[in-house]
């Protein structure tokens, strides 16, 4: 996080047991057809075998374009969705297929913040009720009563505690996202999955929420799984970053290592495409432009999934899927047959 240096991060990432460990995670959505009896004719491989790990107090950024499976990953980790394969381990406990009841204690530890702050808040409930809901569901009594605890939370996330009895529509977009943060924070979780938490907000408000998330992380030693499509936000907030393409992690590394020494052509293309608010830098930047569209996850390309849009693709790329292997600095992995360092930003 913002207070720790990159060197400390590497040490932290390399030592001890991870808070969350995801191995070979898969989620296939079956595609069926048939007149009377439906039979499965294929599957949309939204997430197709990914490994991730997050340590206490760390932010793992997951970045990729629409359809890469990043949102599904978030839903799987919070067990809002059922994995097709692989495993999810939290503090050594296997959560992969826990029942609803057995999952309950872990719901205290893993919380979620959503993109659209409006549709994720019940319009008929007051803010006080919304933020207090986790206490009630988990039957937690806090000292001094729930109301006091809720108001303390509201104050902490920058809301006026006197607005306890107001309804969501009375708040602006940024304030609603603060409500979402307060609700997620209520039970002092260890991990918060943030799914595009700032992409619906205005630029000036976006910075407020990013700063708030950073402050809360330092204060409560939170870990974030931060899912976003905005590479600048991801660079700012993450300790480590995973780049996803068509259901696979194609590259993962410490933040600065990834942005300065990326090896995967897709990462290069992504970084090169970001319009930086810096006219002079843009004028001198190398331009990599991908052609075509992302292939359908129903029928992904053989071998390397990026090969259909990759300028370096050879025969081997269609034949063999490149494994995610260690390359460059410790903790830097890329899945490419022809990795190369390239200065793109």
């Amino acid at each position: 996080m913002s207070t720790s240096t990159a060197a400390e991060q590497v040490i932290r990432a390399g030592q001890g047991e991870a808070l969350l460990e995801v191995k070979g995670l898969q989620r296939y959505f079956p595609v069926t057809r048939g007149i009377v009896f439906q039979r499965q004719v294929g599957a949309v491989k939204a997430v197709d075998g990914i490994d991730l790990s997050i340590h206490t107090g760390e932010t793992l950024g997951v970045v990729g374009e629409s359809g890469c499976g990043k949102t599904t990953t978030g839903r799987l980790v919070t067990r809002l969705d059922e994995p097709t394969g692989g495993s999810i381990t939290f503090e050594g406990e296997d959560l992969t297929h826990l029942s609803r009841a057995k999952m309950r204690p872990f719901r205290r530890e893993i919380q979620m913040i959503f993109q659209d702050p409006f549709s994720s808040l019940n319009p008929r409930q007051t803010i006080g009720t919304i933020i207090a809901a986790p206490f009630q569901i988990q039957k937690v009594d806090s000292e001094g009563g729930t109301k006091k605890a809720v108001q303390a939370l509201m104050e902490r996330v920058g809301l006026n505690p006197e607005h306890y009895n107001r309804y969501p529509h009375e708040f602006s977009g940024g304030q609603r996202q603060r409500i979402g943060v307060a609700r997620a924070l209520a039970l002092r979780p260890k991990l918060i999955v943030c799914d595009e938490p700032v992409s619906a907000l205005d630029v000036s408000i976006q910075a407020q929420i990013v700063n708030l998330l950073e402050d809360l992380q330092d204060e409560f030693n939170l870990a974030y799984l931060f899912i976003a499509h905005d590479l600048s936000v991801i660079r700012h907030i993450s300790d480590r970053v995973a780049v996803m393409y068509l259901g696979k992690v194609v590259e993962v590394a410490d933040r600065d290592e990834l942005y300065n020494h990326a090896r995967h052509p897709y990462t290069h293309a992504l970084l090169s495409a970001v319009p930086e608010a810096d006219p002079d830098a843009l004028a001198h930047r190398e331009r990599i432009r991908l052609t075509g569209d992302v292939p359908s996850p129903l029928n992904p390309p053989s071998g390397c999934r990026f090969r259909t849009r990759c300028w370096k693709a050879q025969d081997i790329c269609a034949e063999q899927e490149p494994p995610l292997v260690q390359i460059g600095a410790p903790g830097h992995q890329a899945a490419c047959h022809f990795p190369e360092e390239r200065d793109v930003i």
Partner: protein
Amino acid sequence: MTESVTTTASTSAGTGKPFLELKNLQVHFPTDDGLVKAVNGLSFTLERGKTLGIVGESGSGKSVSSLAIMGLHKGSRAKVGGEIWLDGAELVGMSVPEIRRLRGQQVAMIFQDPLSAMHPFYRVGDQLVEAYRVHNEVPKSVARKRAIDLLDRVGIPSPDKRFFDYPHQFSGGMRQRAMIAMALMCDPQLLIADEPTTALDVTVQAQILDLMMDLQKEFNSAIVIITHDLGVVAQMAQDVVVMYGGRVVEAGPVREIFYRPEMPYTWGLLGSIPRVNRGGDHRLKSIRGTPPSLINLPKGCPFQPRCDYQQHVEGHSCTGEVPDLLQIGTEDHRVRCHIETGQRKKLFTEQIKPNL
């Protein structure tokens, strides 16, 4: 309220007047809750072959202004004031049939979400053909040939087949390309792009921005690009207008705005955005509070309730008077702020720049 001086209208084109000139544009909407002052005195000029970026957050009035140029507020409750001069013709006072002849023909528009901006029931090709045949009395076959040519030009593979597809059969990027092709059907001289890439993925956004720049060179069109994304402006525009609360708060050449900004709101915007080419161990410089309500605009400077630099103002009251949009320096850099310009430069160099 505005810096622009009312001049006697000259009617002929090509007399040294700018290609597009907005003078003190105002757009107000009467509503049940009160008068929404969406745009309060917007002025700028734009030449052919150049791009102007209008930057602002939601409710800054940037989209409303673009609809005013197209005359799309006519027939609604909106009250439009001021002047819009396009190639020697004044648009605000124009009748609906007159301005309808310009729409699509001389001025075309690209919208944010190409899925909702195209009619879901009609084939993409037919929608392009329709755009051409409104203004050109040609047989369908001629219009179809032009549509296929343009679909090809904007980079849609096998355009003669995709012509027959419906919008939902296109991907997001392809739809935006088709939307651009539709806008270009009648060779417009002015293209207004309202958040053209906001709904798109970053690699697709790069393709679309490249395409727009290429097409601009080819057709020598003027582009007004409206966006909240400073990066898009940095890439596309030669001139930038920063809007806040329905007013221009700062305007000038792109490098002036990005490297020598003088208005505290512009400082706030630049400080708010994380950078992809810089390490992230600094704290984002967010702007406190929220954008103003357009019904109850703050008294005085619209940015005053969120401004952290009011103690540097001498001889004026931020809450009392609206500052004028005044030109500074030799370049056409205009700033609306009560802080004295020397002091602003000092503040920027000492306090703002090191943190950007």
